[in-house]
């Protein structure tokens, strides 16, 4: 009897979808340490994204352009609303703000070199402007952040544009943190703080509190810089319609909209994964705000957060953006998370592709570190070359798609060139679900 019972078929062990292996591991980690997880990067969870959209290409009603021969312009001008000296870019892909401190000096130099070779701009970050970056960046956007670390009028005037950071996609409503192990003497000096302490970057600006104040702050910045510099306002993907509207009201020349896939140097994992919206859900709402104010294309829109390929670029522009911005992709092009460092990633308890403890400063690739021996691993000239190549490929890919859709300028891509593979993406992008002429919320239809 006992033998028969033991040999009877048993229910297969089933892992809980709710209490998954990774969730359980996190519960055990929390129970052991009593502290939340801090990491770098953007949202890792799967969210509706550009992969859920497809271009239709030319057909009976659309006339394509010839491969790589017929002109498909990629130039972008940013800051045409008020600035005396708008920025002119050769490509619609910019490099997002990343701080010196979070990144090494050679990494900042490499970003400047690559961006300049590609004919685009790069952006400072918390902690001020470094000579490496200014010296190697033909066009440099200077971030104006709540911490005001390193802020001064001379660098403000040396910049080609000013980006007022209200929020970022990885942590809308959150400040920043740079842990003590990355606070070298140089980083501390630029931030006017003691060496080796954990540095907190404030979550809100110290001298304005809302769009009415911000309008006056922008007046001051324009007065200090002779009304020459385009003023960007960067917001996280929170309330894109209202945030864009208020940024325009405050006087922005350019709105930068960063979705939840956009990276950060360090913050709580719970913040990265549970606050903010995917960039796909934000673009059409921001464009709607611009159109409602009759300022679409007069105030430019830059979107970021999970831009990886030329297809992503083309889709973002088709939805109404003027340009995109990349951060994580640029770091990967420099060598971040490269499998050639796998042995060292494993020593850090991780693996290539998953390394996100950027805040700890032990980056084997020498990018998110201030340790001299690790920093030496990144050759800024080679890094710049690689970034330029990556930007070039993305641009060529976007042009390939644009030509196939019959566009002689990449800005002529439009929502009508797209369909969605999922209901969610159709609703967010407001393009038809593939195989239908309908999307959830389409005017005149019901769901």
């Amino acid at each position, binding site marked *: 009897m006992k033998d028969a019972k033991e040999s009877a078929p048993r229910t297969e062990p089933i892992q809980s979808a709710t209490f998954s292996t990774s969730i359980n591991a996190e519960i055990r980690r929390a129970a052991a340490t009593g502290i*939340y997880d801090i990491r770098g990067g953007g949202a890792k969870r799967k969210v509706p994204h550009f992969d859920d959209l497809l271009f239709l290409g030319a057909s009976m009603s659309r006339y394509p352009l010839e491969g790589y021969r017929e002109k498909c312009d990629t130039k972008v001008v940013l800051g045409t609303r008020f600035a005396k000296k708008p920025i002119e870019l050769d490509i619609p892909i910019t490099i997002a703000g990343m701080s010196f401190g979070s990144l090494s000096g050679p990494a900042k130099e490499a970003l400047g070199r690559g961006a300049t070779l590609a004919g685009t701009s790069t952006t400072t970050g918390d902690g001020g402007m470094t000579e490496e970056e200014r010296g190697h960046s033909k066009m440099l956007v200077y971030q104006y952040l709540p911490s005001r670390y390193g802020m001064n009028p001379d660098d403000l005037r040396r910049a080609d544009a000013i980006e007022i950071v209200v929020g970022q996609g990885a942590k809308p409503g959150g400040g920043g943190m740079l842990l003590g192990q990355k606070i070298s003497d140089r980083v501390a000096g630029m931030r*006017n703080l*003691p060496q080796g302490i954990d540095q*907190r970057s404030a979550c809100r600006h*110290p*001298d304005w509190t809302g769009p009415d104040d911000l309008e*006056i*702050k922008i007046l*001051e910045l324009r007065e*200090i810089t002779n009304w020459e510099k385009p003023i960007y306002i960067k917001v996280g993907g929170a309330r894109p319609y209202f945030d864009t509207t208020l940024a325009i009201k405050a006087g922005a020349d350019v709105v930068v909209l960063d979705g939840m896939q956009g990276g950060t140097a360090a913050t709580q994992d719970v913040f990265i994964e549970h606050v903010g919206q995917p960039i796909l859900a934000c673009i059409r709402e921001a464009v709607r705000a611009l159109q409602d104010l009759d300022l679409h294309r007069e105030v430019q829109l830059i979107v970021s957060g999970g831009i990886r390929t030329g297809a992503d670029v083309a889709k973002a522009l088709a939805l109404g953006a003027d340009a995109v911005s990349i951060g994580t992709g640029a770091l990967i092009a420099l060598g971040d998370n490269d499998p050639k460092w796998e042995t060292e990633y494993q020593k850090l308890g991780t693996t290539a592709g998953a390394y996100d403890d950027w805040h700890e400063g032990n980056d084997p690739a020498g990018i998110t570190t201030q340790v001299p021996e690790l920093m030496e691993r990144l050759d800024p000239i080679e890094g710049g070359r690689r970034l330029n190549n990556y930007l070039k490929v993305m641009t060529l890919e976007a042009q390939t798609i644009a030509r196939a859709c019959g566009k002689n300028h990449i800005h002529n891509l439009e929502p009508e060139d797209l369909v969605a593979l999922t209901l969610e993406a159709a609703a967010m992008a407001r393009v038809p679900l593939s195989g239908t002429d309908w999307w959830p919320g389409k005017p005149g239809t019901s769901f």
Partner: protein
Amino acid sequence: MQTYDLESDGLRGLNSSLQALAGSTNKTQWNIVNPRGSHAIAVGLDAPIEVNVKGSTGYYCGGMNKQAFIRVHGSVGPGCAENMMSGTVIVEGDASQYAGATGNGGLLVIKGNASSRCGISMKGIDIVVHGNIGHMSAFMAQSGNLVVCGDAGDALGDSLYEARLFVRGSVKSLGADCIEKEMRPEHLEILTDLLTRADSDARPEEFTRYGSARQLYHFNIDNAY
């Protein structure tokens, strides 16, 4: 003496004229009349000139100042002398919020009272307030000196770094990680100098010094609020 009528000649003309002055200029004395609460008056200056604003101003008067001596013969709106690098700004009246915010250097003197967040995120500026200051002053203040001849409001010095705070009167409450500290001779020396330069007759020994307990310098979850 140069006189500029802000009402008739406009803000852009004023700031571009003042910003164009080099260290060797002989136009060192300026009177700005009819400010009428305008914003961004005398911002981004970078020359050793004296600017007298004959009335009250709006936001950000003297913002990002370098070298210039600016005296406001009235009260100032929010963010007076924000991010000042060097030079002197004297306010004969009261100051609204964020006076001296993120200032890196120079001296800001407020003869009246200052509102909330005075000296927020200060990074080396010296601020002397003859009267009282409002709540959350010196929030995340990094370095420099804040001297208050009157009383301080709630949460003084919250999340303070290395700035020194000196208060003669009462402090309604101290912010996170801000504590009373011993007044040593070197602090009395600093105070004496600042009070003299700010034209205050307060005596240094009447003040109490506050500073950072440095308990928040390294992230510790047990210190979370």
